[in-house]
């Protein structure tokens, strides 16, 4: 193989590029693919096969390539399984062969090929069964080492990938004659058109065949159409884009190749994952040529005829002495055209008898190729003709076993294609994917005229459905040659005949599978691994199916195909996950006090998407507990300030707002007076606790309720549902105002002094009272509520004033011997008071379990009422909320630990309950826990053993009142 001196429509010969393959310096041109540059450079051996490590070369010129998968160097790291046939050449490209060591030429594992009699289909299933003791430590590591193609980079890859969304009236998949004609017709009518094409250049087979359209070369016609499409504002051309999946609702997945596959400006994403939503779709994906399963058909130098033509025409690759082995009219016509163009075609071999022999090369009708020779590349071909066998020297053997329509996308919704005897291939049925029409070669219509005609007709149909009018335009003239084929699924002879080149599956493997009972096509596939390599059997499925049908005595149509599933081409996880890792995976929600808290050195912890300060360290702290104890004592003894803005806030207004709240809370809110706040409990309709919070009546028809941070979204969704499903005609409206307000707790015996500095004249508020307040020109809200058990307030201001207010409050608190407190101290304070959070409200507890049955009104209907009265949701058998204190107050206890009677073993059958929250209370100088214990409220004073098997902690504890501190609540009330 070598480069021709002229020609090559894809090449820019003025721009020479140097690159490396397996350490060898090579030259190519701008416009080359890696495959074309390797072939032009005389490199036929590009890798080793997966199982037998057979030498392999480039077989195709597109994304269906089974052999030429290489490792590509990018940013210092090798990326595996890059198809040389779609990889664009650029200056300095470095690639190497994979699945071989030390090199493709001298590969140690080639010994597998000698062992091949033992490595046939089902080898793993038969060999690695016994003895059982070998499974884990011998067989699995062995199989793992042999499995997989190429090696993944072992470091985290940070390079940018993108995801993008697009919408259109008409998506045209494939830019061959059919796709171009469809896109042009629709675009001229004003439809929004997306034209997606896998190749860098649009034109499909017009770029490599020799036909004419309207008297000009096909490539020239295509360039003209592409130029017109590019000039139209309603058209988006998407070259380098493989549409890989058809999904529900007109959604298509597509992968656009970027910086990983070409020379690109800095910061260009490596790949882009598109979701395209289309009203109508035209599938013009063309057809894939089939190889022929003859003995030794896997040698470098054995290629598909269409690929040979493509490399010749687009990339000026001279394949040397060529023997063509085909079984269809298209193959003979192509060979003639290539010979007329100067290709050195030595012979055309065809199993059909009675072919016209007007060719400038010898035509062997009724003949077959029965073998090849050449250690690292083809040297000669053996054929059988009229009972005679003889050799011919050849550099390239070009195969054409016919064409398979690329109908994959049409089958992605589980549609089954139909067998067409005249072209010996499956074609799509109409309507397999809603609003999609397959046209041209993808529908089994192989002439250029038929492609153009079906493109125009499909576009007209789509336009009609879209309510647009197809334009009148002159229809281009092109060849309309018939396509005749005589199927040739395997050539009998000595030696192995490959079906699946990527996974090393031969005709014998398929026959063996059938003999051993794996006779259904889905079983054969899994037993032999045929079709399971990165190419997903694009060049082998049809052949394997035919050989299986033959082995089982069935027909191809009756044997049926395996299921077509996305993706049509391999899609990297990095592309699928684009925008879905790091901060894009979990965006940050920051409170208004965030910067100040961080400036104070607070470690931030996640609460859902929110970040909240854990504690505020000081220089002489030994650890976080010192800070936590200090902050908790500040609140108990002086005053503390804490940002509580992350709690959900929902504003409800309207004449029926009170009635609505009565319906969603277990307790009654309509009796609440304006200016007062009430604690509320919400149930799910199944009777379990959903959330708790406060409900403030700001005015007669105006309420503000809070939710826990964790359940803010769920509660909003729930309230919207109840309102829209059951109370749609009630005069009430609700909206989340969580982010509109910054809210701070000011808690402790000196809380009034802090507020006195803020307001001068502190409004007189009773416990559980609320009032509007003025902070200078800023209208705020003050609530006298407490989650710490101390006299306390929550002060809310519009979010834009939050940062300033927090700074001011912290400074005032510090001046009074207190300061800011974080989540750790907040947790200590609430456990001391027995206040529950979602640590206790775990989705399985009822109001009864929490000891809140008094809040469940017996006098009204509300969400969850009926179910909460079910037998089994109340009573002694329930796990009930209790407090636990270790007998030795300094003995550390842990959340998640289980509880047992002192004399019983730590086994599930003896479980008495489990610990939900723990803390060390600096006020009470003891470890404390909130726990759920079977019939717990009746067992106060009883001793249990706390057993944390994971951490090896066993501590005797005593059941007590969950309100450890100030049980009658005087400190917060008075």
């Amino acid at each position, binding site marked *: 193989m070598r480069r021709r001196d002229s020609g090559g429509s894809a090449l820019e010969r003025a721009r020479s590029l140097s690159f490396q393959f397996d350490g060898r310096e090579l030259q190519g041109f701008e416009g080359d693919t890696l495959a074309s540059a390797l072939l032009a450079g005389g490199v036929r051996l590009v890798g080793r096969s997966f199982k037998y490590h057979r030498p392999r070369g480039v077989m195709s010129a597109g994304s269906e390539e089974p052999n030429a998968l290489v490792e590509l160097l990018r940013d210092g790291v090798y990326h595996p399984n890059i198809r040389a046939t779609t990889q664009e050449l650029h200056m300095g490209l470095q690639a190497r062969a994979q699945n071989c060591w030390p090199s493709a030429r001298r590969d140690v594992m080639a010994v597998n090929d000698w062992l091949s009699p033992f490595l046939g289909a089902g080898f793993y299933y038969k060999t690695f069964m016994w003895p059982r003791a070998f499974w884990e430590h011998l067989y699995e590591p062995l199989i793992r080492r042999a499995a997989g193609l190429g090696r993944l980079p072992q470091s985290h890859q940070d390079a940018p990938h993108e995801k993008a969304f697009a919408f259109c009236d008409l998506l045209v998949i494939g830019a061959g004659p059919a796709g171009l004609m469809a896109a042009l017709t629709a675009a001229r009518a004003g439809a929004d058109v997306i034209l997606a094409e896998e190749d860098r250049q649009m034109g499909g087979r017009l770029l490599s065949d020799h036909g004419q359209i309207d008297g000009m070369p096909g490539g020239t016609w295509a360039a003209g159409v592409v130029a017109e499409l590019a000039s139209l504002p309603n058209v988006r051309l998407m070259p380098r884009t493989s549409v890989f999946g058809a999904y*529900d609702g*007109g959604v298509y997945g597509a992968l656009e190749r970027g910086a990983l596959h070409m020379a690109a400006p800095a910061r260009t994403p490596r790949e882009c994952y598109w979701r395209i939503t289309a009203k109508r779709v035209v599938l013009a994906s063309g057809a894939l040529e089939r190889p022929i399963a003859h003995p030794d058909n896997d040698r470098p130098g054995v290629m598909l005829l269409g690929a040979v033509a493509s490399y010749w025409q687009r990339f000026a690759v001279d394949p040397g002495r060529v023997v063509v082995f085909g079984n269809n009219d298209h193959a003979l016509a192509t060979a003639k055209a290539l010979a007329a163009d100067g290709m050195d075609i030595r012979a055309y071999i065809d199993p059909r008898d009675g072919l016209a022999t007007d060719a400038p090369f010898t035509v062997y009708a009724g003949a077959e190729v029965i073998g090849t020779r050449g250690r690292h590349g083809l040297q000669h071909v053996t054929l059988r003709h009229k009972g005679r066998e003889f050799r011919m020297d050849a550099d390239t053997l070009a195969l054409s076993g016919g064409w398979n329509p690329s109908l994959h996308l049409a089958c992605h919704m589980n549609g089954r294609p139909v067998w067409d005897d005249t072209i010996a291939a499956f074609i799509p049925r109409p309507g397999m994917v*809603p609003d999609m029409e397959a046209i041209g070669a993808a529908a089994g219509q192989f002439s250029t005229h038929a492609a153009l005609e079906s493109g125009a007709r499909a576009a007209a149909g789509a336009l009609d459905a879209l309510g647009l009018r197809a334009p009148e335009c002159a229809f281009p003239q092109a060849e309309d040659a018939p396509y005749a084929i005589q199927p040739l699924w395997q050539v009998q002879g000595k030696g192995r005949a490959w079906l699946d080149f990527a996974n090393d599956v031969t005709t014998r493997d398929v026959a063996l599978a059938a003999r051993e009972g794996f006779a259904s096509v889905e079983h054969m596939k899994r037993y032999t691994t045929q079709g399971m390599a990165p190419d997903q059997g694009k060049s082998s499925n049809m052949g394997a199916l035919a050989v299986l049908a033959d082995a089982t005595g069935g027909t191809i149509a009756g044997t049926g195909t395996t299921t077509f599933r996305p993706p049509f081409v391999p899609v990297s996880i990095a592309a699928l996950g684009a925008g879905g890792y790091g901060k894009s995976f979990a965006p940050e929600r920051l409170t208004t006090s965030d910067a100040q808290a961080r400036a104070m050195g607070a470690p931030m912890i996640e609460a859902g998407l929110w970040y909240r300060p854990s504690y505020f360290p000081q220089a002489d702290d030994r650890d976080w507990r010192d800070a936590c104890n200090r902050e908790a004592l500040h609140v108990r003894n002086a005053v503390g300030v804490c940002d509580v803005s992350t709690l959900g806030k929902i504003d409800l207004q309207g004449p029926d707002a009170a009635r609505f709240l009565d319906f969603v809370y277990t307790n009654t809110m309509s009796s609440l007076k304006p200016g007062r706040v009430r604690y509320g409990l919400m149930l799910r309709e199944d009777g379990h606790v959903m959330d708790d919070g406060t409900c403030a009546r700001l005015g007669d028809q105006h309420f503000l309720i809070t939710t826990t941070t964790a359940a803010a979204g769920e509660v909003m969704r729930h309230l919207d549902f109840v309102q*829209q*499903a059951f109370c*749609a*005609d009630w005069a009430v409206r609700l909206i989340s105002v969580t982010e509109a307000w910054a809210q701070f707790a000011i808690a402790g015996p000196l809380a009034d002094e802090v507020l006195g500095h803020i307001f001068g004249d502190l409004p007189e508020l009773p416990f559980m009272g609320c009032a509007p307040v003025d902070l200078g020109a800023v209208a705020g809200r003050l609530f006298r509520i407490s989650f710490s058990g101390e006299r306390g307030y929550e002060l809310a201001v519009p979010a834009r004033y939050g940062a300033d207010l927090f700074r001011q409050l912290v400074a005032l608190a510090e001046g009074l011997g207190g300061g800011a407190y974080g989540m750790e101290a907040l947790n200590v304070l609430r456990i001391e008071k027995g206040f529950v959070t979602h640590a206790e409200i775990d989705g399985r507890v009822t109001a009864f379990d929490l000891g809140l049955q008094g809040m469940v009104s017996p006098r009204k209907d509300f969400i969850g009422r*009926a179910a909460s009265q079910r037998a089994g949701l109340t009573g002694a058998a329930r796990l009930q909320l209790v407090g636990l204190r270790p007998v030795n107050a300094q003995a550390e206890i842990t959340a998640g630990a289980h509880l047992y009677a002192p004399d019983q073993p730590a086994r599930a059958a003896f479980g008495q309950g489990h610990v939900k929250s723990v803390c060390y209370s600096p006020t009470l100088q003891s470890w404390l826990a909130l726990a759920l214990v079977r019939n717990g409220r009746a067992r106060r004073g009883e001793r249990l053993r706390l057993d944390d098997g994971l951490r090896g902690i066993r501590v005797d504890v005593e059941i007590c009142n969950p309100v450890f501190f100030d049980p009658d609540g005087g400190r917060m009330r008075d």
Partner: protein
Amino acid sequence: MRLICPCCGWRDRREFTYMGADDYLHRPVPDAPPEAWDEYLHNRTNPAGAARDLWYHDPCGTWVCITRDTITHAVTDGTRLEDAQ
């Protein structure tokens, strides 16, 4: 997959939160027998074909009753709950 919101039109299903079958709309009267509540809370048909289920369109806060076909996956309708009772 795309769903239709009566407020916003056709949108990507990632904007929606799924709840379940539209049985949730038919809440028994408060003093209905436990069997009625059991039916309401727990028992669902699993239709092959036309199905109606409830989705929340998070960006606009509209609950939508979606009509779709569990065999073809075709989504044919989306209405407000008050129109779906």
